[in-house]
């Protein structure tokens, strides 16, 4: 029960963080399940995880019906898969976690795009077909955390995934994506109540796309920005590829006293990511473009955690600065700046040992400024964002637990959506039952997206069954 409560609690406070090849927000089904490896992004934080040792096997599925979607996105998405996780404390100082997730994603009625996430890049590829795309592949996660001395803890995280996609039209389009992601982090206890964190993350993603057309030549377009495209030379088979390369550096300071209910944290992260897009392959390459993104984030929270009440106040500021250049002429074709600032408060009330009521509210601002020098477009927006949620967890019997919750969120959107924002209404319910050694946890999430200025709505549901031993 404690685990499932914690999982959802984390979900409600922070936005989902996807891995390199998972869907970007609202591209398909946002995977809302929070598992250990997702919530503990910093390996050294893993030390504080107080969940039960054991194995967790999950089956999950879901569907998103996107009546309102961007042009090159699917009309609906079906997701299903299975995951196996294991967590062990090897000794007092060492912890280990490993997981494998095999996920299938079906994009129905995907118009032209040969990509899973057409809008996730400033340089994208499309062909001339509309069809169904099937993506699948395994994702492997490995966490390791070790206390070297009483003061120093270090952690290592490795994430590795491959995925392939096939479009089921007589004109075939294939994708292959490979990502590797390593994070090393450390926490040092400077003196009794102060801890210093540092981490470094390095990741690479290689994506290849192939359009094959039977009887006729495949016609591939390379999009430079979102308005201008270059028709590639037609051929029976056209290969394109994109390479992403990035790192993050971060540091943080934690104040936490064992006997005090107060704790405080402040951190700063910066990162750079570069992407290049090519027609052809590395052995026979023709540069199409390059874009680079610089990322800065500041985060702080203060928490008061007493026996019957816990209160968290947090603030976060993120800033992105991107630019792209054309591959052939080495000239800047776009610049993009984005800032997100929001703050919030979370309140947890503990009625009994394992029953609680959580309320959270956050509000902020989302601002961007996009300049496309090829199409001569300048687009900017300044939107309010907010989210409120309520969660109730009950444990009426020692072997049974319930969790229900609801949230409302205003989500500002990028210019590619053609609308400024959408509202998301979400409810979820989880149930846990432990007849013997095994614990069974079925849960359900349903959400409704209402785009501003449109009479269309998007439905999204997900169901998951976990067995923990």
């Amino acid at each position, binding site marked *: 029960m404690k685990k499932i409560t914690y999982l959802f609690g984390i979900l409600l406070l922070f936005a989902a963080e996807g891995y390199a090849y998972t869907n970007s927000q609202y591209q398909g089904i946002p995977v809302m399940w929070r598992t250990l490896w997702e919530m503990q992004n910093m390996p050294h934080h893993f030390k504080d995880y107080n969940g039960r040792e054991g194995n967790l096997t999950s089956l999950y599925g879901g569907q998103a019906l996107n009546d309102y979607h961007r042009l090159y996105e699917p009309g609906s998405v079906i997701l299903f898969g299975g995951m196996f996780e294991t967590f062990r404390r090897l000794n007092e100082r060492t912890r280990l976690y490993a997981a494998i997730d095999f996920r299938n994603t079906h994009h129905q009625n995907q118009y032209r795009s040969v990509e899973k996430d057409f809008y996730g890049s400033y340089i994208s590829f499309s062909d001339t077909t509309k069809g169904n795309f099937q993506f699948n592949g395994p994702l492997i996660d490995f966490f390791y955390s*070790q206390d*070297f001395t009483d003061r120093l803890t*270090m952690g*290592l995280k490795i994430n590795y995934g491959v995925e392939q996609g096939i479009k089921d039209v007589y004109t075939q389009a294939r994708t292959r994506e490979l990502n590797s992601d*390593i994070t*090393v982090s*450390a926490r040092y206890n400077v003196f009794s109540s102060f801890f210093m964190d540092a981490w*470094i993350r*390095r990741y690479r993603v290689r994506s290849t796309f192939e359009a094959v057309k*039977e*009887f*006729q*030549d495949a*016609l591939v*377009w390379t999009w*430079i920005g979102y308005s*201008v*495209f*270059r*028709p590639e*030379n*037609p*051929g*029976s088979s056209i290969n394109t590829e994109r390479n992403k*390369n990035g*790192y993050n*550096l971060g540091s943080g300071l934690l104040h936490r006293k064992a006997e005090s209910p107060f704790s405080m944290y402040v951190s700063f992260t910066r990162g*750079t990511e*570069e992407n290049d897009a090519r027609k052809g392959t590395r052995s026979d390459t023709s540069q199409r473009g*390059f874009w*680079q993104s610089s990322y800065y984030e500041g985060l702080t929270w203060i928490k008061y955690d007493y026996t019957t009440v816990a209160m968290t106040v947090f603030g976060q500021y993120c800033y992105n600065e991107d*630019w792209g*250049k*054309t591959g*052939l*002429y*080495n*000239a*800047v*074709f776009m610049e993009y700046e984005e800032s997100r600032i929001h703050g919030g408060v979370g309140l947890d009330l503990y009625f009994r040992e394992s029953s609680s009521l959580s309320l959270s509210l956050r509000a902020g601002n989302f601002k961007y400024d996009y300049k496309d*020098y*090829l199409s*001569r477009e300048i687009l900017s927006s300044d939107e309010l964002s907010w989210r409120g949620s309520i969660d109730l967890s009950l444990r009426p019997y020692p072997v049974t637990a319930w969790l229900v919750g609801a949230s409302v969120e205003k989500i500002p959107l990028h210019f590619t959506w053609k609308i400024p924002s959408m509202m998301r209404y979400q409810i979820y319910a989880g149930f846990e039952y432990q007849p013997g050694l095994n614990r069974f946890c079925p849960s359900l999430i349903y959400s409704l997206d209402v785009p501003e200025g449109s009479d269309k709505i998007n439905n999204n549901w997900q169901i998951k069954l976990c067995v923990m031993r």
Partner: protein
Amino acid sequence: MVNHLRTLFIASFLFLVLFSCMEVDEKPSVYEGTQSKTFSIYLDTSGLGRFFLDSSPVLAGVPVNLKNYDYHGFNFNALTDDSGRVFFDSLPNGYYIASVGYDFPFDNELGTSRVTGQKEFYIHEDASESDTLIARVSGKPGLKINEIYYMGPPNRIFYFYDQFIELYNASADTVYLDGMIVCRMGASTIGADNVTYIFQFPGEPVIGREYPVAPGSFVVLAQDAINHVIVQGKDTLVNSIDLTNADWEFVNSQDYADTDNPNVPNLDNLKEGHRLDFMIALGSDVVLLADGRDVDYIDGIDMETIIDVVEYSSSSSHIKDITEELDAGWAGVGAIKYSGQSIERIEPGFDTDNSTIDFTLLNAPTPGYHHKYPND
């Protein structure tokens, strides 16, 4: 054990620190959409001396079009000023073709005559901002290969037997097809030395007068002069064409199965052992028209007998099969197999000996007429 693990962690941390110092690109100082180009438009008066005794006329008020071939939909238009110059600004980098096609009012016996000209160029940081474009009063006269339809109609049975070649008489005089040859060429190293197919019109070359082509008229040479719309059933070839009324038909008398429309005269195969119809490739190929004085294909076709040559390829990075002396470029870039597309000169008979400039890609063939003037 702990020491080993500590060493492992520190080593991996240092490795990532070093690894993370990845080389990031410098942001370029040049932005797209900031380039400019000035063209001075001159009229080529060679051969027209009697009309322009004193000086070459200034082409003022002439519309000039710039088309960017790197990106779709980038066309820029402007008029020449009183000095015959035209200025474009806010241009993105890229490969361009500047073109002029205008009925210019001359103040001499030429009256209002069409002035045409094209020039290809690149725009980038190091390219010159000024350039010249030579315009001509008309294209070079003579018999031309005006259109080649080789892509086949949209279909799923690999059907491309509705291919045709269209000729156009761009001269002021009647020309005669007697004894002329039409060849499909392979990659040639010296002149036209690699003949793949050779088909010939009946009659005596050069001196024959049985098969005239009037000035400004078209001649369609069909691979098979039949109605291709119904040849394989109505469901499969609905977008093909009816070539029953073609002017000529390629018929290989050594190919006993070749279709022969008895109502259409034939060009026959001259190459011994060749048992195929006049089929040209859907990707890239070369078509040659010569006056027929040299039909000894073993050593190639003599240069002085060649009337017109057109090279085509759907690839912009195509490596040329023939020398620039015969055709400085190639047509058909971007053409798609089995799409019904065709290549045709931008104006009837327009010829600068550079097929990249002279031809345009059509979505549908136009046998016996020009796409700009369908009612002529």
